[in-house]
């Protein structure tokens, strides 16, 4: 069932529960549905409640800023959604994004005419590394977690062999992608929405998307049904690489330069966002909208904690608590195993 189909059911159940004297069964059903929507409820609560007393938090401007701050992670997480829906994991995307930031800024060096070549280079690197991951995953028969863990280390080494300090500079166009606004709306907003829309269409309305979810749910069964599993898994990794490329361009724009450690840690945040959003690690299902909501929850939390002036140390505890709370609220229906 897609989110679009569940919403009317949820509303109907809610109306029923409120309108009549709700029986325990109906409340439990309501509770179950609420749990699948957990992340959206958390997001709405986080957006509305503090606005009541925190003036600088209110309003579209702050929200737009949060989206801009979370844009790179959002795109990365969208790519990871496909990987996880297919019951795999890609730990190398963080360093891949870092490599792309370094390579593209190095090529551009601030020159406007290099914008397009740099974007092409980014896509080429993302595609190639994604393809290598996919091919190795298909051939080597080792768990994707281990394969991409090794790739993480390799990519990090590759970055540092190239440079141990910031190199290059983003061109003005790329800077605008990361930081600029278009009629008051940050450029990042439409960019993320377009990518998300395309991804959602791909996952839910194409045969490829169906195969991705089927392979994730039951690989052996899919194989017996005649699906070429290898031909499904390879493009999934390529998608992951391409998402790293797009996210890398945005990040290059945010930072303005190619910082070698730019991508460190992003892969874990992306995985957390995907799972928080409702895509189970055991695969078989995926929700792009959920992933986006989860990325926003993480971004809103960080923003809120900063605006509240909370000590940096406490911020970490709160972030971890939110991850655990959200994952407990938003439980997948089947038993999940890493």
């Amino acid at each position, binding site marked *: 069932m897609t989110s679009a189909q569940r919403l009317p059911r949820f509303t109907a159940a809610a109306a029923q529960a409120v309108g009549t004297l709700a029986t325990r069964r109906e409340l439990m059903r309501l509770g179950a549905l609420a749990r699948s929507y957990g992340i959206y409820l958390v997001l709405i609560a986080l957006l509305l409640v503090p606005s009541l007393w925190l003036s*600088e938090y209110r309003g579209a401007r702050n929200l737009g800023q949060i989206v801009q*701050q979370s844009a790179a992670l959002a795109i990365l997480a969208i790519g990871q959604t496909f990987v996880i829906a297919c019951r795999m994991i890609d730990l190398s995307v963080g360093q891949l994004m870092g490599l792309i930031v370094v390579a593209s800024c190095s090529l551009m060096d601030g020159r406007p005419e290099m914008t397009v070549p740099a974007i092409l280079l980014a896509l080429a690197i993302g595609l190639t590394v994604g393809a290598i991951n996919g091919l190795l995953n298909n051939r080597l028969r080792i768990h994707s977690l281990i394969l991409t863990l090794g790739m993480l280390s390799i990519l990090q080494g590759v970055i540092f062999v190239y440079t141990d300090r*910031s190199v290059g500079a983003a061109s003005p166009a790329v*800077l605008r992608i*990361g930081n600029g606004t278009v009629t008051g709306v940050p450029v990042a907003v439409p960019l993320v929405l377009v990518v998300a829309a395309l991804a959602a269409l791909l996952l839910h309305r194409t045969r490829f998307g169906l195969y991705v979810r089927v392979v994730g749910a039951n690989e052996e069964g899919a194989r017996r049904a005649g699906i070429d599993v290898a031909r499904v898994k390879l493009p999934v990794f390529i998608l992951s690489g391409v998402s790293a490329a797009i996210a890398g361009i945005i990040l290059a724009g*945010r930072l303005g330069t190619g910082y070698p450690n*730019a991508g460190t840690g992003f892969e874990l945040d992306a995985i957390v966002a995907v799972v928080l959003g409702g895509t189970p690690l055991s695969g078989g299902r995926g929700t792009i909208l959920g992933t986006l909501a989860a990325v926003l929850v993480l971004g809103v939390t960080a*923003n809120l904690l900063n605006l509240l*002036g909370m000590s*940096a140390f406490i911020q970490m505890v709160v972030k971890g608590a939110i991850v655990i709370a959200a994952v407990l609220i938003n439980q997948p229906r089947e038993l999940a195993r890493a």
Partner: protein
Amino acid sequence: MRKFKLLLAAAVAAMAWSGWSAARAQQSDEALKATFERVAKIAQEAVDTTRFKKKPPYHIGVSAGYLSNSWILFLNQYVKYEASLHPEFADVVVTDAAFNPAKQASDVEDLLSKGIDVLLFWPVDEKSMMPALEKVAAKNIPTVNIGYNFIDSPAVTSNAYVDQWKQSTQVATHLAETLKGKGTIFAMLPIAGSSAAVTQLAALNDVLKSHPDIKLASVQYGDWNRAKAKQLTENMLQRFPHIDGVFSPAGQMSAGVLEAFDEAGRMGEVTMSPGDEYNGWVKWIAKTDKWGSVTSGLDVGRASVIQALAILQGEKVTRARVVSTEYLTPKDAAKLYDPKRPDDWWPSSLPEKFLPK
């Protein structure tokens, strides 16, 4: 076949990549020295502060690139302490980017939303902070960079900094002189890629140019982590049967280095470069009466707040307030040792209330 070609292409690309990078690394070191020399001149230029002048109370925003080592923590406390001495400052809000430059950019934007009057910061990476700093400058809010390097940009109103080049040069020169210009050494540097590591190495190489008989056998990155420095040194000890000296300006890592030598029973063969005032390091000096220290310029935290106040009141301000570093002989350095405090401590003038926990 297609896969094979793909992997081959990747391998070729990787080789081209490393070739190009090797050539590039050379240029950067030279450019770095030139920058520091130019900076010494620019630091004296005056800054027009009339457009920043406003009435108190002032809200300070501190964007910390990281808060994970004791030196930075003391510096942070110095900022808060100095601010408390001036009633014009209403409060100090500190954000921690934990070494993530993207987070630091977000932190700066959030501080702006909160409504600060001046931004003090030490960057994870100074170039990566530029877009965020430019947003601050666009709002006519002054920024002061704290730390080890001078940022030459219109977005940075002023700098309160310790001349890292001079400090590293002092450390390297003392080491070279104590070694009498001969020997095999290795370098223990902070986090790979950080401006501190880059500057220290460049300064060391510069000093070594006039001491051709000193060989830099290896460069290790201890990440300001004592345990890691110790482990890396153990590897060095195995690799090189004889080590004459170690270049390590960070006392925190020097303590780990020395422990490794001590456990290997090779204390006698090594000459350490001067470290800093890290309690764990001066403890060794008190014990052995050797090597000395070059101060780390912890006062720069206070200097930044004084600078900020001057800017906000429209007074005369230069582009940099430099905190100088000086060499302390072993005897003087040993006096800094406080046996009642843990190793991870720094001598300071902070009152009890402001000391880190």
